[in-house]
């Protein structure tokens, strides 16, 4: 049901992201120092760790490395409240169409685009909310809209910060698997270790300003997780 490629790529591919000797700062304070980190095409990476450990900061740094290839799904969902679900999803592709096309779409959605977005929303179970304004949605529905916006961009890489917050646990699994499948490479910050193990190929545990462990999912033991979440 959920296809997860566990084997690392055979040929040494050029990494999508690479960091070396980086000190990540948040409002002037160093929150995370990373000696070396490479993420290869095809990897589905989960970032685990307490909140405030620097997961979002790390995602920010990764985003800055190749913004053109990234479908971005921030934690503050960044949805446009006064617009409909359709327009929010469409906004993911603004740069792909000319200005007049985008403006006309604000007045009257293009049927072709609307059809695409409707199809996209079907697995997310949001189809009937197509024309609803964001402020009429529940937290989970907003989250799924944000994911739809990221999916609609059809970029090779997905960066998500807690992309399934507010969605119930059963749905989270299918939803995350769906999103990860739609992208070649993905890095997601998660708070649910079980979800991470089920969907991702590689787990990076962050603790106390550095990387505690960085392993393929199957090699992550319960001791690793205990140490990660121990205070």
């Amino acid at each position: 049901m959920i296809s997860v490629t566990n084997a690392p790529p055979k040929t040494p591919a050029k990494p999508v992201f690479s960091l070396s000797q980086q000190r990540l700062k948040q409002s002037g304070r160093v929150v995370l120092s990373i000696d070396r980190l490479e993420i290869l095409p095809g990897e589905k990476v989960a970032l685990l760790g307490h909140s405030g450990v620097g997961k979002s900061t790390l995602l920010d740094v990764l985003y800055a490395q190749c913004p053109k290839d990234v479908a971005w799904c921030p934690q503050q969902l960044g949805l446009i409240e006064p617009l409909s679900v359709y327009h929010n999803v469409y906004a993911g592709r603004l740069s792909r169409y000319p200005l007049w096309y985008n403006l006309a779409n604000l007045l009257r959605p293009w049927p072709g685009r609307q059809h695409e977005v409707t199809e996209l929303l079907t697995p997310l179970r949001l189809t009937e909310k197509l024309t609803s304004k964001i402020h009429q949605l529940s937290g989970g529905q907003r989250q799924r809209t944000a994911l739809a916006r990221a999916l609609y961009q059809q970029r090779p890489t997905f960066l998500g910060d807690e992309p399934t917050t507010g969605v119930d646990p059963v749905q989270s699994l299918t939803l995350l698997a769906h999103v990860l499948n739609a992208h070649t490479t993905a890095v997601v910050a998660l708070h649910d270790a079980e979800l991470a193990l089920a969907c991702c190929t590689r787990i990076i545990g962050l603790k106390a300003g550095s990387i505690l462990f960085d392993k393929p999912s199957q090699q992550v033991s319960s001791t690793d997780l205990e140490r990660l979440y121990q205070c």
Partner: protein
Amino acid sequence: MLAHLDSHRFALALLILGLIAIIGGDWTTLNTDYAAEMQRLLQGMLWPDLFATEFLLNALGTTITIAVLGIALGAALGAAMVPLYRFALVRVGCTAVRAVHEIFWALLFLQVFGLSTVTALLALALPYAATFARVFSDILSQAPRSVARALPLDTPRLLALLYAKVLPVWPQLVSYTRYRFECALRASAVLGFVGLPTLGFHLETAFRQGYYAQGGALLWLFFALIGTQKWWLRGWSWPLLALLGLVWLPWQVHFEPAWAKRFLLDEIWPQLQYTDHSLWLWLEQIWAQAGPGIWGTLMVAFMALLLSALLCSISWPIATRRLFPRSVWLGRAALLVGRSMPELLLAFILLMIFGPSMLPAALALAIHNGSLIAHLLAQRADDLPLRRDTGTDPSSWAYEYVPRLAPGMRDLLTYRFEIMVRETAMLGMLGVASLGFYVDSAFELFQFDVAFALIVITALINILIAGLCTRLFSQRD
């Protein structure tokens, strides 16, 4: 019925009002040679005659000192009225005084005190005092009660008032007074248009006589005055400037008590001897002028509202740092020029270019208000919390920024509409067919009763529009 206008319906309402204005107003321009006029004006701006020193300095000094003294007097009167502001009668009185434009007050005082410093001061101080009374009492009522409770019980009342009420909100009081000074500076310059010797007078004279280089110099002087005031208007310079004004301004007044009495008690009230002693005929005569005056005022104001909306919705990006990090100073400077130009001055210049019609008036109001609103929207746009993949291209303006800025823009336009109506009425002074035109004509014909009646009607219209706008506000979610 007016409850909860969302942005779409607001835009639709703007379009409908604009359409009414297009059909109901006079938008034909008489001047056929815009280009030549524009060229002369630009020449005057590019090669200003900065050596007309004595008269430039004179105009500058008069404008500044009248503004400072007017504000000082207004603030003092306003503060004195604060304790009385809880009485309904005082509140209504203040609303009425505020509803009459400074220029109309100047025209009234002109009849009593002649072309004098007193006329200019009263024309500024009276409506400002009414405004100060309201705003000061609003600010004072926000003073935290805890300070008053903490004072010893036997504190003298005046001291208690100072410590518990005034000092906690002192910064707000000062910053509002400062903001008002900016308005007073513009108003002081504009008072020249009724003949008082401030910048506006010299500007009008220079341009009417075709001395474009002198006019250009005066315009630059005016921009410099507005643009630099934060450097020369400091805590210490207030009293200094006020003192300078007291010494330097001419104080002689042609005041004849007998005439003043006749003017106030007789001349401004209905003169029925010319209408067969029939109040009905007199009212008909008033209505024959008020009707078209009100219509003209509304048409110009509607058009100004639509044009302001268009102008601010296309010009806010140029002053937003996020969108134009390198050229933002240029956009901000352009909006600064637009919003610091008084409507009357702008309208006067546009009238020279386009000739008399409603177009220059509506354009002038749109440039002033549109730049002001665009400036505020740009500030908000820079503060919006946006996701980091938000683009900086026009498509992103339309999707990411405009929907978030729209409610604020709607509120600012509603608020400014009240001011647009007030200013439109006054712009009639220049020959635009709004209420002010009929007021001015009545003064020229010495029909003081008609002039006064029309001023009262103008005030009532202002109060009505203000009430309507407030209602629109309070009914929004």
